């Protein structure tokens, strides 16, 4: 990144100093309030986008996101929501005007690219739809000191990614800049846990959010598995005998295998069902949808290890896959 020059800029009307202006910008003189234009050649333009949502709207957007989901009623209730935090996150913005030579004749196109200039753990900035966000509201000259009074402002720490060459195109002109986009962090305490939602500050789109899951959400599955369990273990012995006889009618060796295998499979299915129900779950969501995620679940549980063991054994019995299988 090109470093800002240490040049003292002053208002041409009153001579007042312009503090915090490090790149080309449209500013008002802090002394005489005259509208000014600053041109700093060779330095990317630093701008920020004003959020379209205020605090209340950010909380309302979070509530709207979880509406209709099975979340506890007290979640996001008045009093449990902490003061929303506004973040300003930098993005590298480049607009390249490329000339295209094609059969239809010469043409040009403005190719934009926006990439996060910072990495914030737990905040998926790549999910932010940066093009509409960067053009959704009037831009302001980036003034870190002024923004820091009402928001957390992040410094760019990542270099601008190198842009791939466009085949058949020549870059006629390129404009580079840094644009700080607003992101709201809405936090809610529920049952001694902290749940966060990150929202695009210009559109209210949820980038990532977590919420507790209502216990009754697992009730249909639990009831279903309980009935399966009761059915399997409540089956009269005569039914099992009939089933075994049916197996042996099909094939004597196959019948033997099925007789031994059926209880094993049934137990494994039940263990797998129990494995699904026994963990506490949370909702995680983004603009693509909402998913259910278990809490403190190990990478692989015992039923999964057993299942994987069976698959490994089957592969071992089958032998190594040939080239065509590998390709498929």
């Amino acid at each position, binding site marked *: 990144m090109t470093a800002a020059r240490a040049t003292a*800029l002053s208002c041409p009307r009153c001579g007042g100093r312009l503090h915090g202006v490090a790149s080309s910008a449209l500013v008002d003189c802090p002394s005489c309030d005259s509208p*000014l234009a600053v041109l700093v050649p060779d330095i990317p333009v630093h701008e920020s986008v004003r959020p379209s949502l205020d605090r209340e709207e950010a909380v309302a957007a979070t509530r709207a996101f979880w509406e209709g989901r099975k979340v506890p009623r007290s979640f996001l209730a008045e009093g449990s929501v902490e003061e929303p935090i506004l973040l300003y996150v930098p993005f590298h913005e480049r*607009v390249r005007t490329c000339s295209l030579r094609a059969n239809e*004749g010469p043409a040009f*196109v403005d190719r934009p690219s926006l990439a996060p200039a910072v990495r914030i753990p737990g905040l998926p900035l790549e999910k932010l739809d940066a*093009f509409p966000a960067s053009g959704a509201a009037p831009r302001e000259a980036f003034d870190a000191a002024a923004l820091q009074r009402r928001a957390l402002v992040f410094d760019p720490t990542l270099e601008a990614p190198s842009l791939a060459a466009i085949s058949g195109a020549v870059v*006629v002109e390129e404009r580079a800049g840094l644009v700080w986009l607003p992101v709201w962090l809405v936090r809610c305490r529920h049952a001694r846990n902290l749940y966060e939602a990150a929202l695009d500050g210009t559109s209210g789109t949820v980038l990532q959010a977590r919420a507790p899951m209502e216990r009754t959400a697992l009730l249909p599955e639990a009831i279903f598995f309980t009935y399966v369990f009761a059915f399997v273990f409540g089956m009269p012995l005569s039914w099992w005998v009939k089933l075994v006889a049916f197996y042996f009618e099909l094939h004597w060796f196959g019948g033997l295998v099925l007789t031994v295998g059926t209880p094993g499979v049934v137990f494994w299915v039940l263990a797998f069902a129990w494995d699904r129900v026994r963990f506490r779950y949370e909702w995680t969501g983004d603009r693509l949808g909402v998913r259910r995620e278990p809490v403190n679940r190990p990478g692989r549980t015992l039923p999964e290890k057993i299942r994987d063991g069976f698959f490994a054994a089957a592969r071992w019995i089958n032998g190594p896959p040939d080239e065509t299988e590998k390709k498929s």
Partner: protein
Amino acid sequence: MSDRPRVVARGCPDCGSLLLATAGVSWMTCTGCPLALDPFAVPAERLPTFHPAGAGTDVAQRLAFYVFESGPPESPAWIWIPAFRALSTSSRSDPGAVLENRGYRPELLAAPLGAALARTPAEARALAALRSGVKAAEADLRAARLVSLACRVSMGNVAEKVSGFTWPFGTLRPPVT
């Protein structure tokens, strides 16, 4: 122009009205008189600005175009180059090309442009030459001027009435608000 930082007042040297500008682009347009200028240049370069006659001057949202003339002086062709940036839109299908293909040549009325510029006249001239298929130095482009057309923002889109072009809101630079 020197490459040291420069600061200018955004006031029109003729009428004193506010100049509309885009950060990083040296050319600005006056909100009070039909003028676009580069106040960073010494002496300041100027271009006249126009509206199509009869289109009304009270429209809040406008899109600006550089208009060049090329070809024989008695019947020149108008080349329309957007002074804004419509991201990811090819110039073959942008409103400038549509206006050019339609031969849109309205009667012009000198008026404040009502929009900031995302390109300088030099850049627009280079793009006009590119569209004409000749090198910028060889291009016979005359009568550079700025013309703005009314547009409407609704349902998340910006629509330009004459060419019938529509862009998603947020893909235009500077943003139309």
